[in-house]
């Protein structure tokens, strides 16, 4: 039983990271109608920064957090300018945006491997220390709790933002009909930039909480990126809560697979989750079907 619970909590923690990535995707997609293929690599960049700050330069945690935020948001904005803006103003047709963001992720990965090398990043101490909380004889690492809590806080913050603020409402409008939004004076390009900033913040936080949990190397960006997508698919495109639930499902599924089947083939857990989702409920748990127009 304790093994199960330990795996469960670990799954919820890793799942929170997947959920955060999925949230980043959704924020960008809602305002630009594209998926940022480089999102996972942005997180990886944040993890690297975290490592440098904490392990090499021994900066305090809070300073590290701000450095990560600054770096990831800066790279996000660069990506928006270079790889996304040319496609946002045109109707979304074809693979252009995919190739462009993929190209950006390629460059990002290469730069990271030049700076850091190919070795795995050593896990670093978490913000709340390496302590554990013991509940009923089960040890739950505080870093797990931090990851989960962070995701919940971000979810709530995003929901409030979209529902209550001018900007959030405007972003929802732009997502639905850019032309009408433009006629009402809402600058769609500025909205896209803002979406990238927000997604950058969420991804930076994901990096901050994941760094102590798993070891990573510079090539892990795509893996996290794809798993974020699976979380999105499982939870339902377009739903913020879906991102979170989907992420948790994937995280827990992986840990359970590790425990009960085999830890070597953990990656298959993701494939199984996708196939089950496709078979049972293709729109995801919280997804809505769109109205088609001819």
């Amino acid at each position, binding site marked *: 039983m304790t093994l199960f619970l330990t795996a469960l909590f670990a799954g919820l923690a890793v799942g929170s990271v997947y959920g955060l990535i999925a949230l980043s995707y959704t924020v960008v997609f809602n305002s630009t109608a594209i998926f940022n293929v480089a999102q996972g690599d942005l997180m990886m960049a944040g993890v690297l920064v975290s490592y440098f700050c904490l392990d090499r330069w021994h900066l305090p945690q809070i300073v590290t957090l701000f450095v990560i935020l600054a770096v990831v948001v800066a790279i996000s904005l660069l990506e928006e300018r270079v*790889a996304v803006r040319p496609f946002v103003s045109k109707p979304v047709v074809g693979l252009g945006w995919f190739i*462009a963001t993929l190209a*950006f992720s390629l460059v990002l*990965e290469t730069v990271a491997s030049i700076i850091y090398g190919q070795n795995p990043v050593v896990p670093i101490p978490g913000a709340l220390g390496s302590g554990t909380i013991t509940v009923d004889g089960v040890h739950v690492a505080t870093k797990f709790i931090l990851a989960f809590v962070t995701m919940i806080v971000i979810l709530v913050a995003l929901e409030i933002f979209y529902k209550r603020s001018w900007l959030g409402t405007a972003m929802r409008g732009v997502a639905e009909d850019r032309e009408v939004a433009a006629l009402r004076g809402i600058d769609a390009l500025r909205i896209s930039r803002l979406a990238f900033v927000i997604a950058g913040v969420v991804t930076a936080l994901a990096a901050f909480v994941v760094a102590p949990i798993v070891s990573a190397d510079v090539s892990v960006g795509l893996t996290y990126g794809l798993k974020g997508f699976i979380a999105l698919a499982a939870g339902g495109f377009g739903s913020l809560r879906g991102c979170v639930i989907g992420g948790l499902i994937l995280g827990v599924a992986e840990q359970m697979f590790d425990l009960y089947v085999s830890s070597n083939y953990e990656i298959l857990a993701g494939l199984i989750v996708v196939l089950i989702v496709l078979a049972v409920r293709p729109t995801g748990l919280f997804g809505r079907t769109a*109205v088609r127009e*001819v």
Partner: protein
Amino acid sequence: MNDLVSRLGFDSRAWIRWAFPAVLIIGLYLVPQLSGSGTFRLGEYEEILAFLIIAVALNIAMGYGGQYILGITAVFAVGAYGAILVAKYHPQNVGLVAMCVVGGVVGAVGGLIIGLPALRVGGFYLALVSLFAALAIPTVAQQWGLVGADTGIPLYAVEGWEAKLGGETLYVIVVSLVLLATLFSWALVNSRVGHRFVALHTSPQLASSIGIRAYRTQLLAILIASAMAGIAGGIYVYTQEFFAPGSSSVQFAVLLLAGMTIGGMGTITGPLLGSAIILGINQFFTGFQQYNGIVFGVLLLVFAVFLPNGLMARLTVLSERLGIRPRPPSLTSGPALPAADGAPPPTPGTVVAATPASQLPDWPPVLGADNSSPLVVEGARRAFGGVTAVDDMYLTITRGQVHGLIGSNGSGKTTLLNLISRFYSLDAGRIMIGDTRLDNQPPHAVARAGIARTFQSPKLMLRETALENVIPAVELRVRCTGAESVLRLPRGVRVNRQARTEALEILEALGLQHVIHQQAAALPHGTRRLVEMARAIALRPSFILLDEPAAGLSPVELDLVAEVCQNLARSGVGVLLIEHNVPMVLSIADTVTCLHQGKRLFQGTPAELRADTSVASVFLGIDEPLEASS
């Protein structure tokens, strides 16, 4: 020579199109001579050649068929492992051919496993699942003892294994296999199978409207590409005599995609050119391999933003400008006309006034001709959110008559047409032809039952010529198997030619003989409408539904449309004509239905409509009866 050329189904443009790939392939044959290096380099070249075959495969599925199997390298890996395992356990009996066959079969199975579940839901999932598979398969292989885990399977070390082909002979064979793959892809693209791919890729609605079954077609594209990728796996392991998880990484999938983007998808040569460039750079500039990613990334980005159609498109334009390749013929006569609001912009320069044959031929129904009942709509209802677009609708389209459907914007005309052609489903009611219900069938079945339609905004395959746009519709009725068409077996050649001839006849009947070899993208709006109408007629349907065919047409073209409608009716086809041009409708319709806010306001003959002042006042807000055109 021209005779042979036209018998194989070319037109004179394609003749010169062959120059590019021919030069490229000849270059490939000569590479060992030119670079002068020894045998050891051949292995590296052969590796690239195997990858080129994957690029050709990906181009078929993605560039033409629109199926985004981004992770096709997973299929390649699976095929390769299959082939090398068979060779490992039966080293005496297995040669290149066997490995290719095994690779192809295993690859095809692998592709189906990835494709089947993803297709049920939509193309995006195919990209996701295949990419994930491309990631997962090397990771799994790293742990699996059967396939040698991290170190892989060194075939050269297996006792009893000896590659019977080697050196320059092997190299020439492999280049020939690339040539074969390219020829196959050309043959496929220009066959009925290829036409279905392009139609589906252009627009699922377009494809359904000419009876193409989306699911089957997508699956076929994936199957063919997977088999080819698997064969490439077989070739790879034969030439390299080795396979490990590292032989096929996600990076490699990215490189392939980069090659396709740079070369240009959707052409035969593009992927070859682009992939050769990318893979060549990757292989041979190993000094700065660390910085490869940055170089490729920047290159890819630049192409994606500035040259999205790749090098091939740019070279084509360039060669036209330099006069190496003849420009498509253009003919200017008649006034230049503005496009209808909201219509896609036509490219300037080629304007053709329709000069139809003096008498239109008969077009008696072929599809759905076994039934002689009219098409009946009973109690149809459809709402979108809070808006009821069509309510309590009763309508009959009689064979051999023109039925006009008029009403102001938003009155439900197009919704009704979409309901009949099954692009929308009914909330209530039925649509029948005789005893057969239509409203529970998918749109492609409705087309196959003999109901053709046009769209408010013409849907054409823009990269194809006018002729190539009409041929797929004919191919729905003039049948042979896909294999016969692709492989140019006797019946396939005959049917291909027959389809082409029939399409040509219809286009000529509509006066479009001058534009048959022009790209649809270059045609002005009015001509595109006529081409779309030709496509609908080419189905030889029993019923034809025309959605505002007159919008944006010149007076000459308008007259043609009116004549075509009447001719269709004379031939026994039931015509439903949705139009804003009330005088035109009144002059040719046998029955007129007037819709208002989704309900039927009036139904009767044109004479009755003209006399009914209440209709006029509600509909047009005027107090006098409607006038017909002189």
